[in-house]
């Protein structure tokens, strides 16, 4: 191929879509199973999901290059459901946005218990669908053999959940500093540092499980897809691919291990700081993963 049709903007769109799905999934699961102890994470997840969906749509508009037909094209895209995967994604992202906004309203301003649970369950389906969509949209590209694997959507789904959970966690102390008044519960939680540290301890275990699953899926994807060699050596993106493995997968695993040791030694500040470094790395890795898969595929088109 002479040039890249899909580049950093598309990678950002896929990254944000997966992250939005993951963040909402965590928000809903935490609300269903963890109750009040983790309320702040549930709120953070719903907020992250809302912002990420909006951001992904903005990025998509920048990517499609035709602002003048944008309103009409969205209408057209809705009407092509379920024929085109991008239409499926447009529906999923729109519905996820509605569900995320409703969840934010219910979570911050209160609402019926049952309604919240129903919204959670609907949202779980939508969020998993959205995260999977970001991979399926690539796998359906018959002209790009590197993407034509069922392990790719699985990999992107797991990575979406991991990045969503990570950003939802990262946003808690950040939001506590930026908007202490508006987000009272964030602030309170941050004041009770021990409880955030406890939450880090718990969520890092889940992150470790997700990271290991991501590594397994990456191995399955790379092992079963033709032309994998392009990422392993020689191409302009192979270095980035190794950065993703080192910083986006292995480093956070190492940090998680260290934190579990420090947990018993009461090194709270160290845990919060190192967790934040790990969280930033997971997010960076998530973006690089999308980028190298996108570019790698087009290199061998």
């Amino acid at each position, binding site marked *: *191929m*002479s040039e890249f*049709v*899909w580049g950093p903007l*598309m990678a950002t769109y896929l990254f944000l879509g997966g992250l939005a799905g993951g963040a909402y999934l965590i928000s809903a699961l935490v609300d*269903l*199973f*963890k*109750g009040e102890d983790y309320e702040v994470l549930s709120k953070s997840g719903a907020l992250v999901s809302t912002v990420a969906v909006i951001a992904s749509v903005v990025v998509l508009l920048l*990517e*499609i*290059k*035709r602002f*003048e*037909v*944008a309103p009409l*094209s969205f209408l*057209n*895209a809705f*009407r*092509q459901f379920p*024929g*085109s*995967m*991008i*239409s499926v994604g*447009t529906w999923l992202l729109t519905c996820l946005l509605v569900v995320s906004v409703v969840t934010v309203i219910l979570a911050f301003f209160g609402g019926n*218990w049952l309604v919240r*649970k129903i919204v959670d369950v609907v949202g779980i389906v939508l969020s998993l669908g959205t995260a*999977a969509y970001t*991979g*399926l*949209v*690539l*796998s*359906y*590209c*018959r*002209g*790009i*053999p590197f993407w*034509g*694997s*069922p*392990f790719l*959507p*699985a990999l992107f*789904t*797991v990575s979406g959940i991991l990045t969503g959970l990570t950003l939802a966690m990262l946003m808690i102390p950040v939001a506590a500093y930026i908007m202490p008044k508006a987000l009272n519960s964030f602030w309170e939680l941050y004041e009770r540092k021990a409880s955030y540290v406890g939450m880090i301890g718990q969520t890092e*275990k*889940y992150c470790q*499980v*997700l990271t290991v*699953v991501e590594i397994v*899926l990456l191995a*399955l994807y790379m092992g079963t897809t033709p032309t994998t060699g392009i990422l392993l050596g020689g191409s302009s993106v192979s270095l980035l691919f190794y950065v993703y493995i080192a910083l986006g997968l292995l480093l956070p695993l190492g940090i998680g291990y260290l934190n579990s040791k420090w947990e018993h030694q009461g090194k709270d500040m160290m845990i919060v700081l190192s967790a934040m470094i790990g969280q930033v790395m997971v997010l960076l890795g998530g973006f690089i993963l999308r980028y190298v898969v996108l570019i790698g595929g*087009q290199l061998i*088109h």
Partner: protein
Amino acid sequence: MTDKVSRKDFLMAAGASLLVAPMALEGLDRGQRAPVQHLGEQRAVVVDVTRCIGCKACQIACKVWNKLPAEKTEVSDGEFTNPKFFSPITWKIVRFKEIGDYDEDAAGTGGLKWRMLSDNCKHCLEPSCVSVCPAAALWKRSDGPVLYDLDRCVGCGYCTMACPWGVPRFDDDLHAVRKCTMCHDRIDQGLEPSCVSVCPTDSLQYMNLEEARRVAVDAEANGLYTYGVDEVGGTSWIYISDVPFSEFGLPEYSTVTQKGFESDILVKFAGAGLFVGGAILAAVKLYAERREAIMKSGSEGGN
């Protein structure tokens, strides 16, 4: 009232969905329909590589008829294929290929074969580009050509990525993709596509699809290679050659159509997803049980 769903309930529900999902997916239309319908009504072009002399008249005729400007090209890697890639203003490319190793003791061309293939949009019978376009900007006309509406295209690039040969190309000036139209405007006037009309060796021949497929079957019976009879469910441009098409960089494709390809990926993904989901749930459950056990033994130890 508690607002928690018990972990057991959730795991049971997840388990039930594990059982139900494959059954539901089995019912999906796998999209592998009979690849060709209404053959007689459709027009087609047969491209016979063995007759091509590489004069590039077709490449030029395409430019002329469709009023496509020239683009700056370069000869690279000792190749005569020029330009190398489709673009919004290059819809037709004659691919040149030197095949074999030169042997000075061998007679004639020294064991070398010099082959050319006139390449463009294949006007698939079930086009991937049409299938994936979220704006319904592309469609397959019942008599063969795969056409598009510049005003509907949003420039998402999905058709370029999905097309098995990366044919549609985004035009920065028009803000839409463009590609070969099989000269539908000439076909409407009862004329042949422009490239066909100028070919001096009849390497390109315009006929109806049924006939084209018969020609290809006969060629296969004579030991020649064909491309486009089965690939991606069949195309309206059918190629015949005495050397494998991989020589020209044309990838191998099964008879599965785009829809079949999509449902195949979806079914396999659902399988992988259920497996991975189950594994994550099991890991989480094990972790929770271990934690509970540790906490229990801790509190017992404290008593």
